[in-house]
């Protein structure tokens, strides 16, 4: 049930902000402070989520094969690889390190 509550809220919230952008008169969201904050919020969230999902299990900070996978993804990004290759690099390297007992 908890999962459905979370899904319902996410569906409603995410659609509402998408629609708001298309419907709101341009001036309302054009204030520089609002624009700056909106550009920076995803940066903060994505950085925190990347770190958490790479370096934690539950409430514990851990360093395991996922770190190697993320490093591979970072290298792929620096080489300007396509999106799918970046994700595949992370998956393959993580699996490889685990197979080697890392």
């Amino acid at each position, binding site marked *: 049930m908890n*999962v459905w509550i979370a899904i319902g809220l996410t569906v409603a919230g995410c659609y509402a902000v998408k629609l708001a952008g298309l419907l709101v008169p341009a001036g309302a969201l054009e204030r520089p402070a609002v624009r700056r904050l909106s550009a920076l919020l995803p*940066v903060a*969230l994505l950085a925190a989520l*990347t770190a*958490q999902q790479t370096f934690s299990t539950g409430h514990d900070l851990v360093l395991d094969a996922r770190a190697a996978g993320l490093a591979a*993804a970072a290298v792929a990004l620096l080489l300007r690889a396509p999106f799918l290759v970046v994700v595949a690099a992370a*998956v393959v390297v993580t699996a490889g390190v685990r197979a080697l007992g890392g």
Partner: protein
Amino acid sequence: MGTEQVLIQEALDGAGGRPRAAVVRDALGVGVAVGLSGFAFGVTAAGAGVSVLQACVLSLLVFTGASQFALVGALAAGGNPFTAAAGAFFLGTRNAFYGLRLSQLLALPKAVRPLAAHWVIDETTAVALAQPDRRSARLGFTVTGLSLYLLWSLTTLLGALGAEAIGDTAAWGLDAAGPAVFLALLAPMLKSTTERAVAGLALVLGLGFLPVLPAGVPVLIAALAAPAVLWLKGRSS
């Protein structure tokens, strides 16, 4: 007439501008590449204890990847539904600003907007903004949106169903797909010192509070890195 038909028809009506085939090729390239990563989402969702139906509902009705990954990640970590949804929502707020840009660029009829809104995401915005004229932008938005939506939903289903067949998703390294997706979305945003400062502070806050606060809350605290850095920057200049 559906959104896509209206948009495609209007795109076909005009002459001149960029060749339609070139726009369609670019749009399909993005739509297919990113659409296929719905498979990783389906597998991740299943690994997080989300049912096949729930995973599909998320892809069909939320349709903004980072928010979806964040939600199932937070639920897997034991977050309550409100903090989990709040993190997904804040990630989705950037789509409001994409919509603002797109509403001027595409100049959609009012009746079409509620439908088109569902497709306002990173990829459709990127393709539409890259076009030199309105007709190409509309075509790029529509083809990217349609191909990505269909493939993302389909591969989510396959991933969620396949997760059982795959067995231990961790052994296959699929738990690294979520963070890799986040990193791929984050990397192009790190343009100046401000962005990098926000990312660095958010990383420290997100990991620092993780052991001591309930799941989901550290990410919301990490989001405060954005206003904090803006405030510090305002004071120093």
